[in-house]
Structure formats: C-alpha cells, structure tokens
C-alpha cells in the first residue's frame, strides 16, 4: 500500500515504503532499495521541498533523541580524564550540541594539541584532568579510543577549574 507524502506528516516504521525515487529524494532516516524509498526508523516523515524545481526530500526523524556517534570531522565536547607525556585521555560527552547517552573514549596525541611548534608541546601545561574541551575527531583511532585534535582556533579548552576550585580564564 502506497500513501502520498506531499506535505503530510505520517508516523512510519522501518521497512515501510514511502515513495519511489522518480518522485522523491531519500533524506536521513531512509534508504533506497529497488528504486523505492523505505523508512529505516520509527518516527515521523518530514517532506521538504528545498527548491521549486527539485524533488521533495523525504526525511524520517525519531521523536526520541537520535542515536549519534562521533564521526570523522565532527566537533565534540570532551572532558579530560588522564594525562601522560604522549597523549591526554578524554571522555567524549557530546557530539555537536547533542549529549551522548553513553560516553566514548578519545585521546589527543601530543602532535594534535596545536598547529604550531608541535614538537615543543607539553601536555601537562596544556590540559589537566577535569578540563572541558572542544575537539574535532580526526580518525576512528585504535581499538580503545577515537583520535581527536585541538589544533584549530575554535578548538581547545573551554572550561577549566584551578586547584583551588576557581574558574580559570583563557589567555589564548
């Protein structure tokens, strides 16, 4: 059975046929099989027409928080757990602006702390356990953790507390 999805918000389940690729484009939450677009989530359809000439894009979104995991290039918010001369270990708390249900592990290697003078970086002077950082994922890393970097201007420590508990102020 086939329903027209133009400008109509309908609740769908995975595997439900939404339309054919001749009339619609597949957006997030859908997949294409044999020239038909099917939903891959339980949620509501959101047809959207980006421009008059183009096909309507079908998107399915969940009403609960979407499952997100860190991907290469995504900006994440992390908290430092451990530092050692070669890298700092962090817990990835949020991807973009969305908090994760369960934290992932990441590491920032000494060469990824900043863009300049990377051989003179001292991790102890850059991060402390408990600091909150904004980082970017550079690779899926090894078995235990994602590899992250803070070597861009907008990345780095965003919140830190001193030994006495006072909030520290950024100087660079």
């Amino acid at each position: 059975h086939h329903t027209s999805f133009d400008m109509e918000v309908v609740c769908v389940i995975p595997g439900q046929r939404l339309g054919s690729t001749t009339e619609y484009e597949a957006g997030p939450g859908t997949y294409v099989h044999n020239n038909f677009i099917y939903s891959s989530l339980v949620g509501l359809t959101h047809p959207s027409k980006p421009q008059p000439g183009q096909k309507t894009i079908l998107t399915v979104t969940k009403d609960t928080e979407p499952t997100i995991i860190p991907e290469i290039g995504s900006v994440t918010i992390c908290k430092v757990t451990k530092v050692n001369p070669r890298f700092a270990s962090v817990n990835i708390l949020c991807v973009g602006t969305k908090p994760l249900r369960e934290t992932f592990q990441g590491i920032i290697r000494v060469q990824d702390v900043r863009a300049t003078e990377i051989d003179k970086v001292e991790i102890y002077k850059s991060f402390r356990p408990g600091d909150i950082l904004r980082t970017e994922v550079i690779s899926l890393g090894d078995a235990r953790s994602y590899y992250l970097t803070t070597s861009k201007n907008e990345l780095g420590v965003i919140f830190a507390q001193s030994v006495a508990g006072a909030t520290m102020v950024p100087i660079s």
Partner: protein
Amino acid sequence: MDKYRASGPEGTVRPIMKVPRPLPSSEGARPSGRGMDQFRHMFLKTGVITQASGSAYVEMERTKVICGVYGPRLAAQKHQSFEKAVLTCDYKYATFARKGKRAGYIPDQNEKDVSMTLVQALESSIFLDKFPKNVIELYVLVMQDDGGAVGAAITCASLALASAGIEMVDLVSACSASQIGKQIIVDPDVDEERNQTGGVTVARMSSLGQVTHVMQTGMMDLRATSQALELCVDGCDKIYHLMRKALIE
C-alpha cells in the same frame, strides 16, 4: 562451570526417530481448542525498560519474553570491527521459566545456540555499517516458556531495536510450526513442541518479503516442510502488522 551443584552429563541428545504420539483428542484437534492454523493472541509493548536504549515485551498467552537493547556504544577491543557495528545477544531462560526443569544461572549450550540464532536472524535487518567500532547488545529474558520462545524472542528483539531508534532495513517477525504425526500445526505450545516429530522456525522481514532465518529440527518430509514454511511465512506477516501497531502507538 557451576562447581557447587551436581549436574548431569553435558551433551545428551534425543534420538531422531520418534514414535509420534497422537494428540490427546480423538478428532485430531489440539488440546487447547485452537485450530491447526490458529495463532495464540499476542500482546506487544515497547519501552518497558526505561534505562535501556530500547526495549520490548512480547506475550503469547503463557509465553512471555522481554528484551532490552543497549547501544550503539563503544565496543571492547576484542569485539570491535572497523567497518560495522557488532551485534551481540544474551538469551536466557529465567530459572522459573520452564515447566518442571529449573534453568541454571549460567547460559547453557542451548541458550548460547539460541543467542547465535537471534544474531543471525537480526543482523541483516540492521544498518550495522552506520556505527563502526560500536556494539549493539541485546539482552533477552524468557520469563515463561510455553512454546515458541525463540520466535517470540526474535520478534521481541526486533521491536526493541526499532524502539531504540537504531536504523533498520525492516522489522523482523518470527513464528514456528510443528509436525505431529501427519498434521502441521502453527504456534505450538510447549506440550505440542515436546511431542513433535519435526518443526520449523522462520524469521522474516515482511515489508521487503525476505526471510532472514530458517531453522528446521527433527524429521520432516519435503511436502510437510514446504507446507510448514508457507504457514510460518503467513504467520510472520500477521505478526508484522501487530508489531507495526505497537510501534506507532
């Protein structure tokens, strides 16, 4: 190994050839009063375990199965794969689940086999390559087994995965059929399963019309097997509609 209890020999196998015991009723009807191709009433509900990513509960009269899904979350070293997520399952009978036989706390070989069956039946229905390095963990507990527990577990796990919002190709529904003497009956209860000479369990993605898993046990001839498979496929489609209703609400 459970060191404090004396357990029987680990691997005993029943002989394949069985004298089929006739069904108690003389007309050949099922003792429960159901028709040969009549399924039990099913109750499905999602969101029953709040701390899990997704969960579902399936009840078919006296067979009760609950499933919790955790993940996708970062996998331990040995279970990891860089290309896709790993699906693991822990299927367990509650100690009080089966009539007369107390299940132990440690999963035995049968439960481990069913865990693998569940993974096989559900793997192809999830977009695992969207979550590399992650693991999706299914925990299935059979609270009461009155026949068809494996089929109910597959249905329950698929519902739980959908309610967790994990991207899937389609919902998987499953059911089973048994051959007793010359009769094929669908959705056998535990007494009928015990008396069967052969049985078939089918897991199917109804919207795409693809079977994800077939398991056949015992001795069945070709005609009986194909008839049982067809009955199961129809049953799976019916269960799919119930799953759909449960999710949309």
